């Protein structure tokens, strides 16, 4: 009956709330949380309050087109709760608690500027965009706020959206401590990362140790792994739509975080009454730490100097202007860059002769996203978001090697330069519309056009020796293409118990004079047999027209995105899923279960022994096409309020691949074919000032190709370097990924301690120092006997940071 009431409220709201700032609401003795849900739908306000504040509070209100303030005053007239309107938020608190800046700061946190994890005993953020899982039709959807991200302890204590998502059921991490993400048996390049609706291609810093997203600038991230709205397409496995925060309209504020390896600052505030600004910057200072160490090392030798510098930087800037209640526009820029410079100078001079070698290796890679957007509400039924954007990924790598020999007769100099770059440039224009057809039906639709430019590699090589010069320039095909997309997505509550979401995205992708198309239908349904219960089913088809070539599991600047070309067909996946949700009315707990089966087609991967083909050959020659399946069951138990919050997630999964030209055509397990995975994420509010976060991950080991047999290589005596003809022991090919590495488990902890002007975060990565096996090597022991060796990586790593709030 409560559901019926709530739906009725929504229907009334849609039909009657014709003026911004006024609400129409009829409720008699109903739970306050439900009533606020209706208010959120009508006003677009977020409600921010401490957990437990609304427990037991029941509300009666009768309002027709009345200002929100009046309605709120009426609701709380006879309670010990007061409210305050702060921009887009309504902050609720008990009257006996004097107004404190803590609440204000917490409010800023919800708008993404800053948040202290211990400002309130517990902060419950109810976003207008967040639909309880028991009510939505979607399966496998999750919204992560900046506070959620901060609640996941990670390596080096750097809050990270990618690592927060890795704690979700069905999401496998990459190499230990790194940001790779494998969703439901997919690959790392099958996740669509969006920054304010714009694709971002390189989502990692520091080979994946950090993600490209500065949490200080993030408001929230929507994550879809099963029911993917028709708005999104282009990747097979998941979508992560990261939204940056607007500046606070209430005044200047911000935060500054200082960690061992990096620091970040975020500032924001109003410009006049309608405009806000936000600037967030992050920089690693690994180079500042390494510089004195290098200086000491270099001082010990006059003839040998080593160069090294690594740094990454991020900059987010956003300017938002509200023209009216109907129109809001923004311009934003994101620039992220990694720089690595290394090399050495060596020399030897004995007076009559000598030599001098100098080599420099300069690497730089990153993203640039610039965009402008306009939100416009045509009527109380229809709103739209218009976006024009430019997104660029770039990577440049240069080697400059100079060698000089001095003799009494003169000198001889050789000079080698190799300079290469690869980049992607996308120009995007899109329009997204949202129309509330009736109180129970909503239609989202839109179009998008993209001009792509891919340059996978362009290399310049020069070689000079005395009077001889040689220079070559080689470039792989410069792909220029276009992409057009159109989608429609309807969400319809057919009856109070049944809700259906159905959509379709149509795509045209043209490159190399070949046009490929894709249709991606999506259907999901939710049936609520009883209050608090929901049974769901979903079908999702996804298409992917670009893929990333990675020769390693790390995120390296040499990784290249290339479009589908040649005879390859677009990758696609069909996924069906069944699920169930239980969530009590107070929303304190939730149990979700999801069983899925995913069939992947036209997958693209490197052939066996692709590295033996000349690298400048057409991409097609090094790649091959195949298929894959993934199936499994995800179960998550979540506790959302109280002193102890968090979730326990269990996944049972299978994932395999079949490529006619790999593994002899036989089906083989995917690398992340982790049969059992348990993830426990807990946040324990020890006191009003101290909070302990713990994340434990345990899963069946990754799959690995273990080659146990060895054979004697031939004696070829090729040329003047025997190593190229002779190898005494060669590993015999073994079935791909046929060996399972030992069980992986790790505990990460972080402790947040509230201080007067900020908070400390003390983190322990791998708290009980279980060094996990990431590979198996072949080596010799101290007695020269051949042995297999577990390759282990990361021990316990402590870190500390301080975040200053102002």
């Amino acid at each position, binding site marked *: 009956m409560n559901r019926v009431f709530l739906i009725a409220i929504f229907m009334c709201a849609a039909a009657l709330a014709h003026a911004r700032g006024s609400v129409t609401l009829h409720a008699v003795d109903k739970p306050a949380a439900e009533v606020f849900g209706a208010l959120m739908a009508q006003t677009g306000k977020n409600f921010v309050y401490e957990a437990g504040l609304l427990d037991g509070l029941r509300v009666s209100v009768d309002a027709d087109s009345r200002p929100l303030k009046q309605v709120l005053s009426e609701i709380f007239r006879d309670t010990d709760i007061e409210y305050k309107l702060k921009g887009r938020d309504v902050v609720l608190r008990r009257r006996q608690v004097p107004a404190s800046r803590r609440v204000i700061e917490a409010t800023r946190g919800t708008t993404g500027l800053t948040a202290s994890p211990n400002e309130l005993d517990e902060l419950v953020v109810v976003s207008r965009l967040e639909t309880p899982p028991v009510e939505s039709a979607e399966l496998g959807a999750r919204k992560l706020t900046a506070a959620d991200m901060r609640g996941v302890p990670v390596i080096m204590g750097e809050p990270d959206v990618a690592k927060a998502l890795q704690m979700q059921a069905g999401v496998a991490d990459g*190499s230990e*401590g790194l940001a790779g993400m494998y969703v439901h048996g997919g690959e790392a390049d099958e996740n669509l990362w969006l920054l304010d609706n714009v694709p971002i291609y390189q989502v990692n810093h520091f080979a994946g*140790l950090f993600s490209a997203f500065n949490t200080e600038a993030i408001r929230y991230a929507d994550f879809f792994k099963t029911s993917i709205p028709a708005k999104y397409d282009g990747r097979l496995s998941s979508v992560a739509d990261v939204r940056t925060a607007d500046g606070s309209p209430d005044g200047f504020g911000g935060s500054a975080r200082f960690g061992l390896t990096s620091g970040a600052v975020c500032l924001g505030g109003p410009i006049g009454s309608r405009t806000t600004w936000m600037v967030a910057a992050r920089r690693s200072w690994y180079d500042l730490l390494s510089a004195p160490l290098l200086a000491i090392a270099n001082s010990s030798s006059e003839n040998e100097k080593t160069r090294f510098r690594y740094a990454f930087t991020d900059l987010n800037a956003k300017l938002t202007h509200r023209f009216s209640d109907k129109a809001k526009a923004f311009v934003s820029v994101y620039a992220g860059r990694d720089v690595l410079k290394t090399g050495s100078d060596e020399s030897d001079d004995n007076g009559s002769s000598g030599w001098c070698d100098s*080599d420099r*290796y300069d690497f730089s890679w990153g993203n640039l996203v610039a965009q402008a957007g306009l939100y416009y509400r045509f009527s109380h039924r229809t709103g739209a978001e218009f976006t024009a954007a430019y997104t660029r990924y770039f990577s440049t790598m240069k080697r400059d090697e100079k060698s000089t020999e001095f003799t009494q007769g003169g000198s001889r100099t050789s000079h080698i330069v*190799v300079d*290469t770059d690869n980049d992607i440039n996308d120009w995007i224009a899109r329009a997204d519309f949202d129309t509330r057809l009736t109180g129970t039906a909503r239609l989202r639709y839109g179009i998008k056009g993209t001009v792509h430019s891919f340059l996978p590699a362009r290399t310049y*090589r020069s070689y000079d*020796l005395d009077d*001889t010069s*040689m220079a070559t320039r080689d470039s792989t095909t410069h792909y220029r293409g276009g992409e057009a997309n159109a989608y429609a997505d309807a969400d319809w509550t057919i009856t109070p118990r049944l809700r259906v979401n159905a959509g379709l995205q149509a795509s045209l992708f043209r490159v190399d004079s070949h046009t490929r198309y894709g249709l991606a239908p999506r259907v999901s349904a939710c049936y609520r047999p009883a209050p608090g219960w929901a049974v769901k089913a979903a079908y999702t088809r996804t298409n992917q027209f670009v893929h990333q070539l990675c*020769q*390693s*599991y*790390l995120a390296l600047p*040499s990784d290249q995105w290339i479009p589908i070309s040649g005879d390859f067909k677009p990758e696609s996946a069909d996924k069906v899923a069944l699920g169930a949700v239980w969530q009590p009315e107070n929303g304190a707990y939730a149990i979700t279960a999801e069983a899925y089966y995913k069939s992947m087609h036209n997958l693209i991967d490197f052939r066996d*022994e692709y*590295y*033996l083909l*000349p*690298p400048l*050959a057409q991409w097609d020659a090094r790649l091959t096409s195949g298929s894959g399946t993934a199936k499994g069951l995800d179960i998550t138990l979540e506790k959302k309020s109280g002193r102890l919050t968090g979730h326990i997630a269990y996944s049972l999964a299978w994932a395999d691949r079949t490529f006619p030209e790999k593994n002899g055509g036989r089906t083989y397990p995917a690398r992340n074919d982790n049969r059992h995975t348990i993830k426990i994420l807990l946040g324990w509010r020890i006191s009003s000032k101290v909070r302990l976060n713990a994340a434990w991950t345990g899963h069946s080991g990754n799959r690995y190709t*273990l080659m*146990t*047999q*060895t*054979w*004697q290589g*031939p*004696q*070829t005596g*090729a040329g*003047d370097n025997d*190593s*190229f003809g*002779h*190898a*005494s*022991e*060669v*590993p*015999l*090919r*073994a079935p791909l990924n046929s060996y399972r590495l030992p069980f992986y488990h790790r505990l990460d902890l972080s402790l947040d301690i509230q201080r007067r002007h900020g908070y400390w975060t003390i983190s322990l990565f791998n708290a009980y120092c279980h060094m996990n096996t*990431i*590979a*198996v*090597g072949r*080596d010799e022991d101290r007695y*020269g*006997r*051949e*042995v*297999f*060796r577990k*390759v*282990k*990586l*990361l*021990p316990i790593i402590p870190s500390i940071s301080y975040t200053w709030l102002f």
Partner: protein
Amino acid sequence: MAVLNRILPLLPALALTGCYENFSPGVQSEPVLCINAIVTAGNPVEPELSHTWYYTDGSNTPWQNDQNEPDHSVADATVRIYIDGHPMPEGYTAAEGDTIRIVAESRTYGSAEATVTVPHAPAITLEGCTPRATSYGAAGDHPDYAMMDYVMFDLNVELRIDDHAATADYFRFYYEPVSYGTNEHGIEVLSRGSFNYDAEPIFSEHIGVFESVTGSDSWGFTFFSDRQFAGDSYTLRLRLTNISYHAISVDYDERLEHCGFLLTLASVSESYYKWCNYIWQCENGIVGDMSNVGFAPPMPGYSNVSTGAGIVAAQTPSQYYIDLTDFIRSTLASDDSK
């Protein structure tokens, strides 16, 4: 490990904290036959048969005293060789264009087979040869030696290859100094000098961009394909530097002045090219480096034998001799100090 050496600074925490632990994976596997044969046109076919072994059993394998290598020979195998589908005749020597099939069977290790076609000799033409002396000197009136001559010189060679059309061809270049031998000080009269692999870009065609910019070079690797000049001609620009000619003799010995370089360009089978490329990739390539520390899939050995163990390859060389006698003589004759 060249690539890794450049990347390690990027991952100091990882590299400094990683560790290894010996263990037994408990995976059973059966040994199989291995066939190795490098066939050279004009020479007999002599396959070597062995068997694979469990990696950790290597130390327990009996060692052959003469070669100081483990004995993995197969005692119960029979080997049959077919030339163009027919049993190999007695006294056969490999000829260009022949397809050689080697079949081995063993009661213990099963069977294995491999096929290779002997490539045609490459057509080569010397387009240019420019020796340039950088320093030289002669004995003059030395009281003890009639000959005490040296010439330091560079050599630029341009060698044209005319490629066979319609086939994927692979080549290997190498050279040898040819001289009387060692002088009275035990030094080769003519040294190899330094071969500048970077001067000829085609020797680097197997090197990926990332390997190139991280310092991997083609040193020692002179295999290449005709991918860039299929059916056409290509001129190799070969540069040798710091070549030394040292003739030391108590008496004048004209034979010491006769020297030169023997350039060899061999057509090699695809299996030969891929085998040597595999070795390079293991030692210098990004996948080889990364797989050693678990950041890339492991690299199984390349093989064209049905069991996955062994290489059956073929080559047909073409040679050109560059006679430097006149250059040495004229250079020494111009020594004013003589």
